[in-house]
């Protein structure tokens, strides 16, 4: 995260190397450790749950590109994710569920969906962007919901083949917790690196520019709709990759995956985790799904807990839970740097 919106409209950007104290090797070791710990202690169910957190987190990460860097709050993001999920599930019935093929199908679906949506929404921002993306999303949902022959309608799709990985020697089925977890770790990591390089690349800077100084960017000769369209397509590609794996965690995909409430859930996850931080997407997804899955065992009113967490986050930790906790524990590096 080399760029952080500070909430006042100013943006601080600096190369990642200046802000990070840990060397790359140490970071990699930490990462490997963090990946390995669940493998030792978690059962099949928990690993699948982690896989789901990582996959949905990856979709939220792609939303962060739009919201955190382009100021484009989309209520149609589930179309990229869910559309790719459906495409993968449908394609797997004909092509088999090779993970590389599925990812390709998902990424292409996500990009095409983003391109089509982009053509409709790229000239708008704020409320109009929100409404237009919502409408496009709901059109897709209606199609999915009623096209029973292809999508299974309200019942969704199940009974497609399990995900496989073709190596040179053998075909490995990815139908257990460990395999799905490892696949989603790789997906999440690749998506994170791709998103990071996008925001540090000139196109990412230009996207920030369109949010912060629209007029100046136009005056400098940038085509704002074009930049937004490119951001949408990049975001769609990442969301599509995540969507491609999603059906295989539970061997099921249903119309909820493209419904606007899915998009809204992603926004809530993003806000809880921290808008514009990229990594926060995974934190938010873990907190939301954790509450939904575990708190709901104790109370029917779990949505109240999600609501409270959301409100508290917005009120006292507007930059997300991680940044908020860091600040609360006295590590105020960010604050000092700003002042």
């Amino acid at each position, binding site marked *: 995260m080399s760029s952080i919106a500070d909430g006042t409209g100013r943006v601080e950007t600096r190369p990642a190397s200046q802000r990070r104290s840990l060397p790359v090797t140490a970071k990699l070791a930490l990462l490997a450790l963090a990946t390995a710990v669940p493998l030792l202690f978690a*059962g*099949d*169910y*928990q690993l*699948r*749950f982690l896989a*789901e957190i990582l996959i949905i987190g990856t979709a939220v990460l792609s939303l962060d590109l739009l919201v955190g860097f382009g100021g484009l709050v989309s209520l149609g993001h589930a179309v990229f994710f869910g559309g790719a999920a459906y495409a993968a599930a449908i394609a797997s019935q004909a092509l088999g569920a090779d993970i590389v093929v599925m990812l390709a199908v998902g990424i292409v679906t996500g990009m095409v969906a983003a391109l089509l949506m982009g053509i409709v929404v790229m000239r708008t921002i704020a409320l109009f962007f929100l409404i237009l993306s919502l409408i496009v999303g709901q059109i897709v949902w209606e199609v999915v*919901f009623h096209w*029973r022959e292809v999508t299974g*309608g*309200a*019942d*969704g799709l*199940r*009974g497609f083949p399990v995900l496989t990985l073709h190596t040179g020697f053998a075909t490995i089925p990815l139908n257990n917790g460990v395999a799905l977890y490892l696949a989603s770790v790789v997906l999440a990591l690749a998506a994170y690196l791709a998103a990071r390089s996008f925001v540090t690349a000139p196109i990412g800077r230009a996207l920030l520019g369109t949010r912060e100084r629209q007029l100046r960017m136009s005056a400098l000769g940038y085509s704002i709709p074009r930049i937004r369209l490119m951001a949408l397509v990049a975001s769609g590609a990442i969301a599509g990759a995540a969507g491609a794996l999603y059906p295989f965690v*539970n*061997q*099921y995909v*249903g119309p*909820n*995956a493209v419904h606007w409430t899915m998009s809204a859930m992603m926004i809530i996850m993003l806000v809880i985790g921290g808008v514009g931080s990229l990594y926060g997407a995974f934190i938010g997804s873990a907190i939301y799904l954790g509450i*939904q*899955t575990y708190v*709901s*065992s104790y109370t*029917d009113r*779990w*949505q109240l807990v999600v609501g409270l967490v959301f409100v508290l986050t917005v009120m006292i930790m507007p930059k997300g839970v991680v940044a908020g906790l860091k600040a609360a524990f006295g590590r105020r590096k960010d604050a000092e740097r700003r002042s």
Partner: protein
Amino acid sequence: MTERFPLSRRDFIASAGAAALTSAIAAPALAQSANKPLKIGMVTSLSGPFTALGESMRAGMQMFLAENGGKLAGRAVELIVEDDQAKPDEGVRKFRKLLGQDNVDIVSGVISSAVALAVRDVVTEAKALTFISAGSANDLARKAASPFVFRPTKTNWMLGHTAGLWAYEKLGKTGCMTIGADYAAGREYIGDFVATYQQQGGKVGKQLWAPLGTTDFGPLLTTIAAEKPEFIYSFFAGSDAVRFLRQMREYRLSGKVKLIGGGALFDQEDVVSAVKEAALGGLNTCNQSPTAPSSAAFTKAYQAARNVMPGEMGTAGYVTGQVIKAAVERVQGDLSNKEKVKEALLAREVETVFGPMPFDPRNNQAILDIYVNEIKEGAGGVPVNQVIHTYKAVRDPGPVA
């Protein structure tokens, strides 16, 4: 029961000990499992569109377990209830949690057919003993049937089909219109009704559809008023049914046009208790009736506990408990051999509040008595589903051979 128990267990251990080494290793585990509490997982909808139904289902199951002193076949029962929000993805997650983390012996519940279909592969893969309390899409008893998924509930076909028979015989050979909720269940109910009614020789007029969650049925009701049908076959559930019946009354159509529907349209607890007089005269075919002879004691107990007559979901929770009890008791509380549990449950019928319930060995689908209910004024002027006819032992066509 508790006296007989240790004996049979000791016998078993003795025989196992005499047998091969592997079964000798398995025996202590078996002996232990009889003393361990029996964990029953229930997934139902406690938030989302089916909240009221889910709460009734949970209450029915809890009532049943309380009546049995929290024990089945001598084993203490631990009930773990999870909320699926009527969303398939969430339902799958909750089934995985119950099976993978809570290690339940039995999973049960489910209102939404979409959830029931979505979890099918999960429970099949895990070979989990599953009792679907209410999800009723036809495919669940056909293409999606599964060796260890038992269905102590109806399929949509059972209700649509019997309504078709009744309508042709008693309501009229022509002058039929249909109006239904435009989603999977609505399409199935209406489709099965129309198929049977036409097969009998009946003629169906206009067919109307309303999206799920329709608030204003006005345009459809004026169409009905203009068409002047003899009767209407309809399927709506929950708040859609409540709004539809109220607006039928406001348009002065109730009473003029005979209305027959799926059980959910006139569900005693969920709909009739809310719309009251607007339901009077309505007909429905349902696997449950608060006035069925088999339901007499339960209806009384439920009314005492919840201050309302039971509808399908409250009863379904209770019946699921009854079927689980039968299964567990027939194998003396030892669920380790699932084939044996299945064999025992399919061997003979279970007496339930729905009525006698044998299971179809092809798909583990219950073969049920289907009641034709008419809403009449009961004691104290309260509209009640009164049984006016019973179709005995209705059996879903099942998987095509």
